[in-house]
């Protein structure tokens, strides 16, 4: 009789079968879709980043000289620095809002793989802030008198490089969660690490213009992009976990 | 002696370099001393706080 009672007790307190935790792709898609939806609601904020980018590129001819030869030589570098600075602007919104209202903590505790959730967020972030820069680069290129083929190289380089910038920014943004220092600290952390991307990104256009071809630069950028997508999620997830200890 | 200090005309550059190194080391050693003093002071304050908290208990335990 005791055994029956015990068995009944066991049945009543047996755990309900849990659904399997979300897989990597599902988590990624969910996080990406959510962040894109949130981004759509703050379209004006994103537009500001693009405007900032064009504003910075316009400042250089004003500050230096409108000499077409000089501008064409500096074009790639200016566009890349402007893209770098514009990407810094958008970084705060990657984790800040979710951190403030506790959603990020829920993501850390959730059964879904944090690295996948983070990857989804960064992908959405790049689509919202990086991709517009890539698409508007031709405009900046025209401002500086770059030829159509050079602009093509610039666009490809930016398409490969801006995700790397997003990942470097994501790591820095995660590390500075809950830290004082704001955007200048973020810039200090990101910019030195971004130097290789800057060198190979801007260098690709210059190399192409010099007749040496951009393949070497672009392949290095590709390698960087792959490394960023492979290593970025795990490192960023670790940084997010550290911020919630 | 003065010839040696002159460093064949390059005295300014040589001594600016070595001088800056000496200055940097001096600043670092001074900063170390200050750090040690501040750390010790902080530890003292904490210990005084802890003693102040423990004292009432010791009295009641008689």
């Amino acid at each position, binding site marked *: 009789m005791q055994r029956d009672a015990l068995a009944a007790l066991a049945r009543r307190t047996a755990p309900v079968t849990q659904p399997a935790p979300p897989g990597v792709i599902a988590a990624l898609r969910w996080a990406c879709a959510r962040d894109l939806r949130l981004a759509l609601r703050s379209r004006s904020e994103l537009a500001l980043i693009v405007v900032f980018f064009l504003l910075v590129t316009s400042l250089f001819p004003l500050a230096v000289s409108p000499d077409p030869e000089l501008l064409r030589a500096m074009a790639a570098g200016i566009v890349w620095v402007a893209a770098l600075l514009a990407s810094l602007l958008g970084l705060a919104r990657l984790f800040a809002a979710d951190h403030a209202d506790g959603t990020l903590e829920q993501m850390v505790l959730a059964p879904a793989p944090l690295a996948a959730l983070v990857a989804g967020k960064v992908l959405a972030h790049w689509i919202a802030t990086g991709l517009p820069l890539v698409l508007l680069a031709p405009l900046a290129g025209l401002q500086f008198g770059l030829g159509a083929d050079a602009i093509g190289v610039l666009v490809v380089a930016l398409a490969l490089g801006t995700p790397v910038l997003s990942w470097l920014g994501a790591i820095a943004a995660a590390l500075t969660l809950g830290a004082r220092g704001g955007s200048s600290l973020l810039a200090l952390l990101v910019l030195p690490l971004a*130097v290789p991307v800057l060198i190979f990104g801007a260098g690709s256009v210059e190399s192409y213009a010099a007749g040496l071809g951009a393949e070497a630069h672009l392949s290095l950028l590709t390698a960087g992009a792959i490394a960023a997508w492979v290593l970025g999620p795990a490192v960023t997830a670790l940084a997010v976990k550290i911020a919630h200890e | 002696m003065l010839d040696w200090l002159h460093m064949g005309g390059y005295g300014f550059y040589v001594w600016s370099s*070595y001088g800056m190194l000496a200055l940097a080391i001096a600043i670092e050693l001074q900063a170390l001393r200050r750090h040690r003093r501040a750390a010790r002071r902080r530890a003292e304050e904490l210990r005084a706080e802890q003693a102040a908290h423990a004292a009432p208990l010791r009295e009641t335990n008689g």
Partner: protein
Amino acid sequence: MTTFARFWYRYASPASFYPLAGRLIPVFATLAVLLAAAGLYVGFFVAPTDWQQGEAYRIIYIHVPAAWMAMFVYLVMAFWSAISLSFHTRLSAMMAQALAPTGAMWAFIALWTGAFWGRPTWGAYWVWDARLTSTLILLFLYLGYMALRASIDDPRRADRAAGLLALVGAINVPIIYFSVQWWNTLHQGATISMTAAPKMAETMLTGMLLLTFAAWTYTIAVALHRVRSIIVEREAASGWMSRLASPERPPAADGSAPSGAAAR
């Protein structure tokens, strides 16, 4: 357990490392002074004058050790950060924290002496040479590490966040050096390479090596002193600190409290 492992575990706690560090500081400090004296003597009075650069080349005796130390200290910092992140140890993180300011100092000295070597030799204080530019970025990496640490209030969280940053930086350093080298060689016409150092006579090399070891022992002594202050700062609340004497009476060499304080 091997003797090495036993040694490691024994000194992994701040409490037991504190007196050991205190005993080691004078050893390394003395070594640093002796090696520096020897190196400077050889560098200035034994080594000949470079026929190409004149006496200005003597700056190289501190420029090269400084540049090398800046690089080496960052790697050691990253190593201790990796240990701290993997094994959740406090002392290794404190060690990384203690090394950073000195590493930054070496990077700054490398840049300063590089500029003052460049002016008489190449005509300009700054020539965007690959190695100097990489050292400049390395200085920014140090400053970023120190800034991140300073901006996080919780010491354990600061340890882990800054530790991860140091690791990310360390992995990036070769990439940065490579990319800057690439950038430099592509613009061969505009820049000059400062790595084309004067052909080194053996005495010059000896002087430089002696000063490199001097810089190394100096860094160890300074880092040990700084880590002791960090230990005092951070372990102040825990019990073993109260067994150390108050500042008026420094602890005995083996870390035991002088009689009187033991009554606590």
